[in-house]
């Protein structure tokens, strides 16, 4: 008995909540001097402290504390005048000390909020807390199962152990109805953009520097909130939306059948798009939190906090508002750009010197198409707004045709080189030598007498085949409109 998404949200009200982990882009780890560089040989960025050797002690990274406060300020949170680290105790082989140094009831940042826009409507997502902790190492389970159970053996890499991790927890978000999945995605998108503009993290979901757990519950209208599940392993913006949607459908199916929802951790599968049960939280682990005695309390100086607040960069929402005002686009264009997730990219392209119309056309047209093909966000496509502005400039001054400009985009995406390098490398330029074009045109006419006859006989659209032949002969570097008029002229036909 399958339930459609429409059925599910007609019968039930979803409540969502998000826990986001952000790896900070500090040079060194949270509690030691080891490098945080991604992708190094396993267990090379380690020391007595992040390996949990007997006797080693932590020292808190000031840059990480500063980044956390900045995140809190950007999310409208209160900054605690006094805060402490706490130990979260549990045994796992990727945890060098078998406790994680985290924060419990005294987080660095308290309540705040983040506003997101979905379909032109503003939704305020309450922030419960923002706290600082350390990341764990990484296990690799070798064997057919790929999981710890049934593995032949397991390897552990402690390079990641101790990398500063900020956890941002929302309050439950009710009342978003059918839009719950989009609100979840919009929240993570906005959060990612804020973190990026603060410069505190790489925010690369595919590398795990931004990780998201999504809580979902359903209740019938007028009833109290239902039992929630926590979905982990949600590794892209698209997955955030899909995970909420599939969990709403799954829970509605169970509730329709009169079953109850089990409070549990579930794992999202990118391939199937659904969630599967992980460990049950009904026998909840007792983490035996207590204040970390190896670290002193954090008491950020109020003046320092105010200085950080004053130094915050312009945040995406403000920039967007300013952009919209300065771009002078109408509501429909704006909606189109917002839906494609390219408002800021367009603005940046305009800032780099391009006219707004051209910038919008590129980002909502060919570049949006490429993003879809590659299943990445436009911002992660691999072409910078400055490149796009340069392309627009080259088209405007006649150096490139639109078709050539698209080839240049493909080149940039393939090689990562900049536009001018790709244009030079591939010899992309409009052939404007009229003599050469005239020769190519008469060659095309002689090679295709039947088509030439049709055109002469008044079937004007047939000239397209001749234009194509000339374009092939010039490797696509001619201006198609110019070619067309030369052909018509040689055939003695006027439009």
């Amino acid at each position, binding site marked *: 008995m399958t339930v459609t998404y429409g059925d599910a949200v007609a019968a039930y009200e979803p409540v969502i909540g998000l826990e986001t982990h952000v790896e900070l882009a500090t040079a060194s780890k949270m509690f030691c001097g080891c490098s945080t560089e991604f992708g190094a040989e396993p267990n090379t960025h380690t020391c007595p402290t992040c390996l949990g*050797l007997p*006797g080693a002690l932590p020292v808190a990274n000031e840059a990480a504390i500063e980044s956390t406060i900045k995140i809190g300020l950007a999310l409208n949170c209160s900054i605690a005048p006094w805060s402490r680290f706490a130990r979260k*105790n549990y045994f796992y082989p990727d945890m060098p000390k078998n406790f994680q140094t985290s924060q419990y009831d005294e987080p660095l940042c308290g309540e705040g909020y983040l506003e997101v826009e979905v379909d032109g409507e503003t939704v305020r997502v309450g922030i419960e807390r923002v706290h600082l902790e350390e990341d764990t190492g990484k296990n690799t389970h070798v064997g057919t199962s790929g999981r710890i159970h049934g593995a032949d053996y397991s390897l552990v890499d402690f390079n990641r152990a101790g990398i500063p991790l900020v956890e941002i927890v929302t309050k439950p978000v009710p009342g978003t109805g059918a839009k719950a999945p989009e609100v979840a995605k919009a929240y993570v998108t906005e959060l990612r953009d804020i973190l990026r503009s603060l410069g505190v993290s790489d925010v690369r979901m595919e590398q795990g520097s931004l990780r998201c757990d999504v809580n979902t519950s359903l209740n019938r209208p007028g009833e109290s909130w239902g039992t929630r599940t926590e979905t982990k392993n949600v590794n892209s913006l698209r997955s955030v939306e899909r995970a909420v949607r599939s969990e709403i459908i799954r829970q509605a199916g169970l509730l329709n059948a009169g079953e109850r929802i089990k409070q549990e951790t579930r794992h999202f599968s990118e391939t199937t798009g659904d969630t599967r049960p992980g460990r049950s939280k009904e026998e909840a682990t007792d983490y035996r939190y207590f204040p970390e005695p190896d670290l002193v309390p954090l008491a950020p100086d109020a003046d320092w906090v105010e200085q950080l607040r004053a130094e915050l960069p312009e945040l995406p929402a403000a920039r967007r508002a300013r952009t919209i005002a300065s771009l002078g686009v109408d509501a429909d264009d704006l909606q189109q750009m917002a839906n494609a997730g390219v408002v800021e990219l367009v603005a940046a392209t305009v800032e780099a010197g391009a006219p707004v119309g051209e910038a919008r056309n590129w980002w909502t047209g060919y570049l949006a198409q490429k993003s879809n093909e590659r299943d990445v966000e436009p911002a992660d496509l691999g072409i910078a707004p400055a490149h796009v502005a340069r392309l627009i400039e080259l088209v405007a001054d006649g150096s490139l045709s639109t078709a050539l400009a698209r080839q240049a985009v493909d080149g940039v995406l393939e090689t990562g080189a900049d536009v001018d390098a790709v244009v030079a490398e591939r010899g992309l330029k409009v052939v404007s030598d009229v003599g050469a074009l005239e020769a190519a045109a008469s060659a095309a006419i002689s090679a295709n007498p039947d088509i030439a006859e049709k055109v002469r006989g008044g079937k004007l659209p047939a000239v397209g085949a001749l234009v194509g032949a000339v374009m092939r002969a010039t490797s696509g570097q001619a201006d198609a409109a110019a070619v067309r008029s030369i052909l018509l002229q040689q055939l003695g036909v006027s439009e």
Partner: protein
Amino acid sequence: MSLIRSSAAELAARIAAGDVTAVEVAQAHLDRIDAVDPSVKAFLHVDADGALSAAKAVDDTRAAGERLGALAGVPLAMKDVVVTKGLPTTAGSKILEGWRPPYDATITTRIKDAGIVMLGKTNMDEFAMGSSTENSAYHPTHNPWDLSRIPGGSSGGSSAAVAAFEAPLSIGTDTGGSIRQPAAVTGIVGHKPTYGAVSRYGLIAFSSSLDQAGPFGRTVLDTALLHEVIAGYDPCDSTSIPAPVAPVVEAARDGARGDLRGVRVGVVRELSGDGYQAGVLAAYDAAVAQLRGLGAEVVEVSCPHFTYALAAYYLIAPSECSSNLARFDAVRYGLRVGDDGQHSLEEVMSLTREVGFGPEVKRRIMIGTYALSAGYYDAYYGQAQKVRTLIAQDFAAAFEKADVLVSPTSPFVAFGIGERVADPMAMYINDLCTLPASLAGTPAISVPCGLSEGLPVGLQIMAPTLADERCYRVAAAYEAAVTPVLASIPELTV
């Protein structure tokens, strides 16, 4: 005087003067260890080669005409809870058997840099949990005053080594009294510095908020000289205090002139009476009278919350240890049991911990795990922390009336090996007098104050936070006024 019976200060002076080489001094102590340690069993590991080469380096430095540190060439015994690069470090536990650390503790580095010659690693109660060194996973250590008795604990190897003239100096750690009580029952001097005065980086943690390393010596001055070497701010330890080192050597020298006029000595009412051995109280009363005779003004002070120190300590220390000892899981270092392809990861962890930890360690892990459990935290750990605050307030009030506070260091003299092992509570009350200063993080010294039944008694002198020098000053004055206790230690028959 023979090399092994000389004080550290004398040895350093003779080495600096070229009267004796550091190698000769080290060899004399290694010979003494060979002769007596089979009966005392103070050491878990003797590093003869390392000691001789460190001594040679000191001699070379001197030959090159460079200035030597105040303790250069003087031998030292290191408690096995302190991490030493390349040298076995077990914390008295089977779970770390064979582990050779890849790094040095901050105090190890400071000791090496000072040219002090490390002879080896001393025995201790497993993970510093105990008051008799009987909880060592390897063997008990014997008190040089009477080999059938305990040398105190948990730093019993370090206290016995100094009392048996195997080393003039040693390092201990004190969580609830583990320097002061062993010093008291072996007739030597031991000081627990202000919490945060000596770096904990490289101390294998028992109870992080209480652990503090400190010096043992046969004289107050020797102890102060070693204190100055190991103390001082360490950026690798967040709880280390960024303050200048207390002027303890100056205080020890000043105190030795025997003038305590203007010093107010507070006798803590709650730390004597029922449960204290009569001989201990007699020696203690005589010591207080002696202080008065040196010009001190003796006042009585009351610290009503000291009564709760034992209960609070036995919640806080086990709670922290349950977390600190979680890292011993067979994954990265130390013992691994059951890794035969038949057992799961969780089973290997459990088997290793079952075999690797002794009964007292397991008892405290269980107590601590329980005390931190959801629903019990407030009643146990939370409440114990409040008691800690009250004890600190008692100290603050008492230090309004007195410059230092005194008490016996231990209610008893050294008891027989095996006498108390079956009764944890009988063992725990050893710490009755030492726990308040541990919980408040304040400094305290134990200095020998006579004998009871032929066995040493200790006088504890407590001072306010970061005023460690007061302990040394009063201790040195007292020491100068009385016959050295160690003069009457029986010769070890070997």
